């Protein structure tokens, strides 16, 4: 009952919330409340030949939008917002912001401050037709506000945005920053729980919400209505072998009105690397490694309201199988509005395949999808 409610109402709510932003950088068509198949799938090829691979919901055809060589692009993830693809290169690849338009298959680079080590970029509402992109500058402890208008870019910086800002979003006339609270300038060592910092547009008073139990040098935030979901990948020691886990990843549910953490859901014991996406079916999809021995990728489905896992089996993660019933492991999972889980897997030679599973977890599609895939988004 609850899940049905979530499946049917949350996409609509999300679409309504998104309406004010439409027009800033491309516009979707009017959202139909009935679940629709995806308009397309975008895969980020982060290694070897960085770029986006675009696929349709059916068929095996794909097209590629090149971003640049690995000396100029090294992102492990991207964001898709209203037909705009945002990704950044770190300090090791030149501190660049890449803004791509899915409709025109074009890309634009913006130079960010040198050695600022960008972490994640988000589309923010712009004024007077301008496009505004926020970028978390991890080594600069700042948020860059990049405004694009008439082919010219300008930048403003919000300083003192935590120890290592990794993500941000807008809510209620404020910029909210996810602080990894890690030593990103040196070795990304986790220094404590992650924090959510509220920086109001007016005034100098900032609020800091400590996300107890949520740790990691990387993570992300997504917002549904007045609730933010902040996830951290966890904390592990990779400096020596065998690797050791200190804290698994976790998700915190934060009520943005009350500025309180509603609940926190740790990921399964021994797991590492929680990266969370909002499925178009209203569930949260978390991709992680089962443990630090095998690094087996797993996908978890969680309810947005109480963060409980929905797996359909004894294990917390989704039991995905091929048509012969053999178990399949996959990474970067996200469901479309029909509840089909899309994910990617890299095989020999880092050849990437897109896999699609039915609601019951049976593989219904497997197509080549570029090489060196690291992230996926459904349009």
């Amino acid at each position, binding site marked *: 009952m609850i899940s049905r409610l979530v499946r049917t109402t949350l996409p609509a709510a999300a679409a309504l919330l998104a309406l004010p932003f439409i027009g800033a950088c491309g516009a979707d068509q009017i959202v139909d409340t009935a679940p629709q198949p995806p308009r397309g799938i975008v895969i980020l090829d982060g290694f070897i030949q960085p770029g986006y691979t675009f696929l349709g919901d059916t068929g095996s055809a794909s097209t590629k939008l090149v971003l640049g060589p690995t000396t100029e692009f090294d992102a492990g993830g991207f964001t898709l917002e209203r037909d705009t693809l945002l990704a950044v290169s770190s300090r090791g*690849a030149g501190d660049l912001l890449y803004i791509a338009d899915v409709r025109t298959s074009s890309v634009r680079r913006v130079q960010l401050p040198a050695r600022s080590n960008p972490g994640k970029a988000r589309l923010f509402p712009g004024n007077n037709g301008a496009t505004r992109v926020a970028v978390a500058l991890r080594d600069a402890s700042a948020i860059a506000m990049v405004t694009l208008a008439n082919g010219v870019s300008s930048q403003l910086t919000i300083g003192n945005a935590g120890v290592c800002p990794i993500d941000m979003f807008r809510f209620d006339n404020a910029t909210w920053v996810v602080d990894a609270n890690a030593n990103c300038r040196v070795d990304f060592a986790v220094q404590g729980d992650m924090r959510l910092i509220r920086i109001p547009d007016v005034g100098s008073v900032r609020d800091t919400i400590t996300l107890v139990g949520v740790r990691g040098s990387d993570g992300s935030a997504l917002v549904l209505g007045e609730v933010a979901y902040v996830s951290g990948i966890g904390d592990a020691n990779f400096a020596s072998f065998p690797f050791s886990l200190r804290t698994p990843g976790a998700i915190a549910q934060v009520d943005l009105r009350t500025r309180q953490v509603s609940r926190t859901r740790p990921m399964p014991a021994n797991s590492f690397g929680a990266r969370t996406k909002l499925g178009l079916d209203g569930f949260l999809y978390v991709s992680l490694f089962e443990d630090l021995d095998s690094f087996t990728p797993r996908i978890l489905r969680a309810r947005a309201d109480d963060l409980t896992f929905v797996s359909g089996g004894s294990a917390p993660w989704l039991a995905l199988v091929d048509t012969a019933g053999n178990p399949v492991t996959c990474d970067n999972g996200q469901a479309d509005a029909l509840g089909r889980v899309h994910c990617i897997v890299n095989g*020999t030679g880092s050849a990437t395949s897109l896999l699609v599973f039915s609601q019951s977890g049976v593989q219904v599609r497997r197509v080549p999808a570029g090489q060196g895939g690291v992230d996926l988004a459904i349009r």
Partner: protein
Amino acid sequence: MMTLLWGTMVSALFDVGALHQTPVLCVQDAATGAPLTGAHVSYVSDPVAIARDRQLLVEACGPLTSLRHGDHVTVARLGYRPQIVTRRERPVDASRDTLVVSLVALSAPPGTTWSLETRIVTARRNDDATTIGRTTQSLDVSDARAAGAGTVNGMIAMLPYVSLRSARGETGLSLRGSRREQVAITLDGLPLNDPATGIADVSDVPLASVRSVTVQLGADPVATGSGASGGVLALTTGRQRVISTRLGAFGQRQLEAAWGGATAGTVWHASAAWRDADNDYGFVNDAGAESQREVRVNNDEQRLSLSAGVLGARAQFALLGSTGTRGMVGAANVRAFDADRARTDRLLVRTQFALRGTQLLAGARWFALEYRDPVRPALDARARASAADLEWRGAARHVAWRVGGGADQLRGTGGVAQSRWRSFLAADRSWASKTNGRPRGGARTQLNAGLRLDVIEGQGALPTFSLAGEHRVFARREASAVTLTGRVAQAVRVPTLYDLYFSSPQRLFVRTLAPERVTLDASAGARTQVGAGRWTASSEASLVARNTRDAIVWFPGNFGFSPANVGVERLRGAEGRAELRHARDARSSFALSSWVTAYRSTLVSGDLLIPTPYVPRVAGGGQVRLEHGARVGTALLRAMGQRPFTAGPRNPAFELPQVALLDLSLAQQLPWQRFDALVTFAVENVTNVAWQSVRGFPSPGRSWAIAFTLRHSPP
């Protein structure tokens, strides 16, 4: 009918009957043509008599000071089979002729014919068994200096068929469309390849200690062993007496010296080199949001190298040590490495002893790398790699044999610890037909077959072989000849210690790396040589093919790149070279040479077709050399077609553009008493082409250098 020539003492015959001047003897390696110093000369009036007198040749060439009418001369050197030089029909014209004696290494199989005739020194084909059927080219350091080379890297860049690239000071070499870890580099036979990475860096080998460099294309499983899938680059040291200084663009300063002598029946030598450069050249940074002109920073380097050696009648000891620091400049648009530094230290030691007609060799290599990040000291890293080798070689009946073993070790930051032992047994044999000589010419056929078995810890037994042949048809005195060549081989490259570490369980999959196996390395071609008066022309062309199974290629893992055995790598191609020489007299000559390679090297992995990174489909070069009196002018052209820089499918967006580079040099010789002085002015990249040998790392534009070299001339 093929005739076995093992045991036949092939002799150079000469008569010094009308001896008014002292003839000069030059000793060289039969395989590479490299001059050999430290040869012992014995004078006897009869081959079975006791030597009347003995002489140590400190240099590769020296006068036969004790030669008398009717003498026989035995030339011996450690590591080589001795040669007896005896009477010949044609008298020596001591004022004109130089006796060139080619000594065959103990490691080469007996039975190969070689020519030791009295002649004027000219470039000649190598006749050693290890070069049968192979494309081989050598370059002498004197020629390289005259053409503007100031470093070993610069010297290598002048060789045909060689593709050289460099990003942060280290060099990568590709031969016959190979990946850089598929090339073996040796220094007097000692491998220079770092056991940790499989890559050899010759940047810190002082030019003053080098006599020649030879490139041999194609897999060399028997002589070199693992890692020589694409070919071998062989450096030979020399005992020069030279001092050289060089100044150039971008703060380049260099000083090197070498000296040698003879003491108590041994030849010794020592060399030292110091090099310093800012390398702060300008470039166009097109990797950012907008193209802009910048200057390289943190690209400086300082190197100090020392070498020493002692050569006696029964033992030899050699040492090469170097230390260098440099800024670890990042890619063109990356500022994060502007403070990072690296220091590399290297020590190579090698000894060999004569042991009852066999040779015992021992060598050790030690490499150290320290990486310093002042901004993030926690990221400082160090690695220590070492290797030890022991080898015993000799010849029994018709077969040259080698047996040896060794161990490799790696220790590094982060708990990196790898080690392994290895051993091998190799044998090869040559056959040669009798020279079917006729007054107007003749023909000769040579075959060489070799087998090798490597047993390496964790990799099992790895058998390899090579089979090569040549059929040479020549005119009188071999001034003109046509040679048909063919060669097939199988080779192996075991995973490096880094390969093994990064493929271990902390990566995405628990997997054991298998050796990379060249299941077929084949070449077929022809060489021609035509001599007419003062003109000589030569050419060679080959078709080549190589299939490599379980290629070890690094692809992304979950925390970076990890090596994996990936599919099959196929190479098909052709390579050729032509040269034209004209010598008007002893002081005026003209030489024109050009080479070209065309390779299609593709890794097939599932649905992916991945061209081998940095292998251009077409590459070539040419050289024009004019020598008139004491002046030498050289123009060197190098050209590369488009070449991929990623391990991904062919995509023009991930290819470096074609480039052509022109270097010019002018050298003036200044004959001084007891010294030959050479002043060289060189301009590299004359047309100031903006290019990259490694994607993201700009190479210098036009640059200049002036060098002054003093070479001691024995009286």
